[in-house]
């Protein structure tokens, strides 16, 4: 970790986490999430503030005396030891009764489904198996807190998704309080009980996955989680005005008319129909033209140009496989949305909700 003088990697990141929950800190690289994790683990000292685990302040406690298990970005397994020796390491260091160690190691290797690999060296294990050793090693000594520092970042997608579920299963089984750090929004949504979105060292929003997705606290969260279309304009009584077009929407906080605002629309919450379709149920319906379409397998992403919304690039998901070939590039269409789906935020300043769980 390197800090430029005067720049804070983590600034005012207060939050409380209930025991037994699975929290994910989500943010782009450089957002301060790894720093936060290292401070919790004790590798870094916060310049101010307090960290407490189960109510006990741990700031003065050295890392090796904290009851914190950590799975590292590059796993940091011990290459000169077998899988079992890796898992036994924290027990030996923490002076567990030596007679109980083999059984406990076996139990945890079974937990991560590596029962048959105890005597393998680390380099003899596959990437996924190494992940499992790292998890077993971090959990075997019953830490009060488990920290995951993007351990899945290097895996291919299929293995990553498998391990996400595995993390979740193990966490539920052991009820260990877990803080996971990632820049992968899908991982955050899949595994977590709660999510903190961080940016620039500041907590942007702290909420359960569904709330993060459905009620983003600001434009950054809306942009970082899910695929959104952004509209820039000014506040109006009905929502916002882009150029000469009125757009129905909900303001996060009541705003004076004419305030510069930015609106966010989820790609799956925009309806699409052929020219002339009235799109029943939508509060705003506008004409447009298919600029491009991108086939993503389980869905199709349309990119729409609209003269009514100059400068905006509207992105719409289409999930109906039978309707994949409804429109061709260049076709005239109509699109629309319900007022509740256009989230309107004040421009120019983020409005983090801080560390209070919503």
């Amino acid at each position: 970790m390197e800090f430029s003088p005067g720049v804070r990697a983590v600034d005012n990141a207060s939050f409380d986490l209930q025991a037994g929950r699975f929290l994910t800190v989500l943010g782009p690289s450089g957002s301060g999430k790894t720093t936060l994790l290292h401070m919790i683990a004790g590798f870094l000292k916060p310049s101010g503030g307090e960290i407490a685990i189960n109510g006990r302040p741990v700031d003065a406690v050295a890392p090796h005396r904290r009851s914190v298990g950590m799975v590292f970005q590059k796993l940091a397994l011990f290459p000169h030891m077998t899988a079992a020796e890796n898992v036994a390491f924290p027990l030996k260091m923490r002076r567990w009764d030596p007679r109980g160690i083999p059984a406990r190691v076996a139990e945890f290797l079974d937990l991560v489904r590596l029962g048959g690999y105890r005597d393998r060296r680390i380099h003899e294990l596959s990437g996924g198996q190494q992940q499992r050793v790292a998890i077993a090693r971090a959990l075997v000594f019953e830490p009060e807190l488990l920290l995951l520092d993007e351990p899945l970042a290097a895996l291919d997608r299929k293995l990553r998704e498998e391990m996400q579920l595995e993390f979740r299963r193990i966490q539920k089984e052991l009820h260990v309080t877990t803080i996971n750090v990632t820049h992968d929004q899908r991982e955050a949504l899949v595994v977590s009980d709660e999510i903190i979105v961080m940016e620039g060292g500041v907590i942007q929003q702290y909420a359960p996955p569904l709330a993060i997705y459905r009620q983003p606290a600001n434009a950054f969260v809306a942009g970082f989680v899910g695929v959104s279309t952004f509209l820039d304009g000014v506040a109006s009584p009905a929502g916002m005005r882009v150029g000469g077009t009125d757009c129905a929407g909900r303001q996060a906080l009541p705003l004076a008319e004419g305030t510069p605002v930015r609106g966010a629309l989820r790609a799956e919450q925009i309806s699409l129909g052929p020219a002339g379709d009235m799109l029943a149920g939508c509060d705003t319906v506008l004409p447009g033209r298919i600029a491009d379409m991108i086939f993503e397998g389980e869905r199709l992403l349309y990119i729409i140009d609209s003269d009514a919304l100059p400068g905006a690039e509207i992105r719409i998901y289409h999930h109906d496989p039978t309707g994949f070939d409804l429109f061709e590039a260049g076709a005239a269409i109509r699109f629309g949305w319900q007022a509740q789906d256009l989230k309107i935020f004040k421009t120019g300043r983020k409005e983090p909700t801080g560390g209070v769980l919503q």
Partner: protein
Amino acid sequence: MTDMPGPVSRLRYPLGWRVMDALERGAGILWPRALHRLTGWLLIAPALLLVAVLCLGLWRIAQGSLHVLDRATFLPAEAYTLENYRTVLDSATYLKIVWRSLSGAFLTVVFTLLLAFPYAYMLVRTPSPFVRKALLAVLFLPFFIGQVVRAYGWLIILGNSGVVNDALGLVGVTPMRLLFSFPTVVFGLVQYMLPFAVLLLAPALTAIPRETEIAAGSLGANWLQVLWHVTLPMARPGLVGAGLVVATLALTDFAMPAMLGGGSQDFIANAVYDQFFRTADQGLGSALALVLVALGSVLVGAVFAAFGAGTLAMGGKR
């Protein structure tokens, strides 16, 4: 001008490309494609030749060791004999010198690694580029000075009227002999070997991710346990490699025993020198030299047997 595409405008290649093409064609004539399998051998041929010349020299030395010196003519006697080896084995002096060389090399390895490890660790782990550069500079400076000048420096520093004794004199300690003893020789060797050891250890330590040590800490190991259970075992290839290099250099050293030993702390190389250049007995000198070669080979062989040739990152798995 015409827009008609035609064969006239052939693409112009830069001159450099043409030169390279010509060279390649030339090389193709000199070294046909069919021989490309052998290119590797061609490239190591000079090195092999050098080794061959060394082996030839060793062979001549081996032959020389089988003739005793005829002191009436100061020529090697005609007859083949193992007499020179018997002289070496029967001589209490030479056994003493061999033992001194071995124990000196062993102690040098131990102390050098003890000093080099923290130094290399600091060098690798320090977050400050300035500190790293300073450590490197301090390390390399003695390299440029050379062994003999350094040994001479110790004569000045540790002499009876040297800096150390002057300092001791200030606190009322009478001057004492710090030079010309076995510990002084080992001291000089350690100081001489330190840069080698640090430079051999540094890459091995660089290969140990900082994260692994942090991980060990978070798993409950204090710094000493991290060092013992994680850092040292993972640095083993570097430690063995550095130890081996230091051991062979110390075992065969000439200058430190000659200059800091006060004449009574000879190593094998000094005994070889004496036979070649002082008593002109090249046969006995050759026999001693071969004993030295044998000792070194046994040492290296034993280390390879114990730790595997992979220790020096040669082929073996880590």
